[in-house]
């Protein structure tokens, strides 16, 4: 259990790396660090990985394919998303745009996952690679010391009466990241940077799900729902198919919710009883229910991601994107874990885990799809939310949707650019698009 790379004269460490949090970010970072030959402990406060985690559950999986090629065949994934439906709700109607394309299925683009099953699998992969998995332990604080360069640096973690020392700590502790905050890398976010998600898992027989959502076998559908579902509060709803259940939820901007004077549960109840969704949910039984914060600040929330002896990954670093129609966090968490683990392995090998030694993480992150997408969506107000209604232009809409929903691990193009490129390839002319589009929308 002691370090594999101990140099004479250096202080004793219990592990090369302590990773805090076994969500997608922590488990992937731990796995890759163990693969690089380092001794790693993965600490999780839940009794088992996944027990504390709530997520809408569409994983844009191509980045995970880089870590575990063909993971969708082995991991406990629920369904492969072959159909993206965007539904606009009014109090008594719903208008849907249904995008089912072969580009979504081959290779696997997005899958639904239930975290209670998926997280233990990922953590198990790390354990197989030699990571010491330590569930049931809540890390209380970071241990810090003044390094040889005079700067404060992180040298381990404290939980209860126990301390563990490490060369590098990876903070993968999720949206609130008390660890990143405690060392001043993040502040307490203003409420307009946060959203609250309420989610339920609704049990239905497999065949019923397939009939109602128009999918077969292991195919699945992801519905994004906007409009009346949130009672005018900024945010949106989702409805995703699992093998034998649906993930039903709303994501509500916290500042807007507070202003409305309503509770998140109230909005969720309105949403779940909406007539526009009744035919999907009928006779379903709620088997799980919970609520969780989501980071929504986008690029503005991502600050420093590394300091001496510490890197911050996943949602702890503020890496989530809410495009209005999709909430993405798991794929960004995995992308940041890849960048961080490479940089940490390099820094440990070079014997320099100071802020400068770990700066490779930020460089790698900036060059990856993670920060490129964060930048894209920082500038783009959810373009799709405004233009997605031009559904009459089937071909055009389809190629926009393909561009938006197909995440192959390459950086996303700016949304307007996606639409524009699709538009240029389409026979529809601009003026016609705008005027007919609006007329069409009003007429619906």
């Amino acid at each position, binding site marked *: 259990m002691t370090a594999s790379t101990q140099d004479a004269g250096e202080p004793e460490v*219990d592990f090369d790396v302590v990773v805090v949090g076994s969500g997608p970010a922590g488990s992937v970072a731990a796995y890759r660090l163990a693969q690089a030959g380092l001794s790693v402990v993965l600490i999780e406060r839940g009794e088992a990985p996944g027990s504390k985690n709530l997520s809408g559950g569409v994983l844009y999986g191509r980045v995970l394919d880089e870590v575990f090629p063909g993971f969708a065949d082995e991991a406990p994934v629920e369904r492969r998303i072959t159909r993206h439906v965007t539904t606009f709700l009014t109090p008594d109607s719903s208008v849907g745009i249904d995008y089912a394309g072969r580009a979504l299925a081959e290779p696997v683009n997005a899958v639904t996952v239930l975290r*209670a099953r998926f997280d233990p699998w990922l953590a198990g992969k790390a354990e197989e690679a030699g990571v010491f998995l*330590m569930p049931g332990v809540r890390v209380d604080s970071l241990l810090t010391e003044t390094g040889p360069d005079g700067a404060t640096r992180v040298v381990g973690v404290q939980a209860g009466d126990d301390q*563990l020392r490490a060369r590098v700590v990876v903070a993968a502790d999720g949206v609130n990241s008390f660890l990143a905050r405690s060392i001043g890398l993040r502040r307490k976010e203003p409420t307009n940077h946060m959203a609250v998600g309420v989610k339920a898992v609704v049990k239905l027989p497999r065949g019923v799900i397939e009939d109602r959502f128009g999918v077969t076998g292991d195919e699945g559908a992801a519905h994004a729902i906007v409009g009346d579902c949130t009672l005018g509060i900024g945010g949106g709803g989702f409805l995703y198919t699992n093998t034998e259940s649906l993930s039903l939820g709303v994501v509500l901007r916290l500042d807007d919710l507070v202003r409305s004077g309503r509770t998140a549960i109230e909005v969720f109840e309105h949403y779940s009883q909406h007539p526009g969704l009744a035919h999907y949910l009928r006779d379903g039984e709620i088997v799980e229910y919970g609520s969780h914060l989501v980071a929504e600040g986008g690029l503005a929330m991502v600050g420093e991601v590394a300091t001496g002896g510490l890197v911050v990954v996943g949602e702890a670093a503020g890496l989530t994107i809410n495009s209005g129609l999709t909430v993405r966090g798991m794929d960004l968490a995995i992308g940041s874990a890849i960048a961080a683990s490479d940089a940490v392995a390099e820094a440990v090998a070079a014997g320099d885990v100071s802020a400068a030694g770990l700066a490779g993480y930020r460089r790698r992150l900036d060059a990856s799809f993670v920060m490129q997408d964060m930048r894209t969506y920082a500038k783009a107000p959810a373009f799709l939310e405004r233009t997605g209604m031009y559904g009459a232009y089937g071909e055009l809409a389809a190629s926009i949707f393909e561009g938006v929903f197909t995440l192959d691990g390459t950086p996303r193009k700016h949304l307007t650019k996606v639409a524009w490129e699709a538009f240029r390839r389409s026979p529809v002319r601009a003026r016609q698009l705008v005027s007919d589009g609006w007329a069409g929308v009003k007429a619906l």
Partner: protein
Amino acid sequence: MKIVVAYKWAPNPQDAEVAPDGSVDWSRAKGAVSEYDPVAFEAARQLADATGGEVVGLTVGAASVDSPLARKAALSRGLDRLVVVADDRLADADGTRLAAVLAAAVRSIGDVDLVLAGDSSVDVAEGQVPMTLAGQLGWLGMAAVSGVTPSADGVVVERDLPGGITTLALTGPAVLAVTTDAVVPRVPGMKDILGAAKKPVEVVPLDALEVPDVVAATTLSGSRPETGNRRGVIIDGADASSAAAELVAALRTARAL
């Protein structure tokens, strides 16, 4: 003193789903040390520390009772070593059969002075395994044990019975089922869990044990506990003070106040 703690790796009730008809679906439940067993680990540890003895954890069940997670969960709670019988032929074993396998394992461990156990398992809750185990071993069996302390030639046992608290001196080997509040079990810390990974685990094949045949009982019928005459009054909590007034009024009408 050599103390064995018989414990169960049981499905966690937090993950169980109760259907509207009252049936329980355990299929999504993950394993955990059965909630009432850590008390037995702690009582055994304290006794062993006071007498200079050894604490051996023992669990029997399906193959899934032996995983790295399951081993650490048990060994981080004060055990010195672990003996596991994990075989899918035991997946549906009832309490009588599990007790017979436990007894065979206790015999194979050898020179055991005392077996401690929780007073029942969290999933089955029949409270029958410790006493059947005592019968199988031909030892003294005692339930409702609320305290165990060392004495010159054995242990002093305190029992919390409906008639009051009794204190007894034991000299021979015994199986004791401890109450849930006998001692306060430790919450394993990081060093406990790291230490757990270094402790020895002995996997005993089921076929290596001499397990006598047991008599099987057949369930003829079952009924669920009476839930009482519930009125099912739901009070809207939107306004706290009017909700409180309504609650008081409802309790008055029901003559509860």
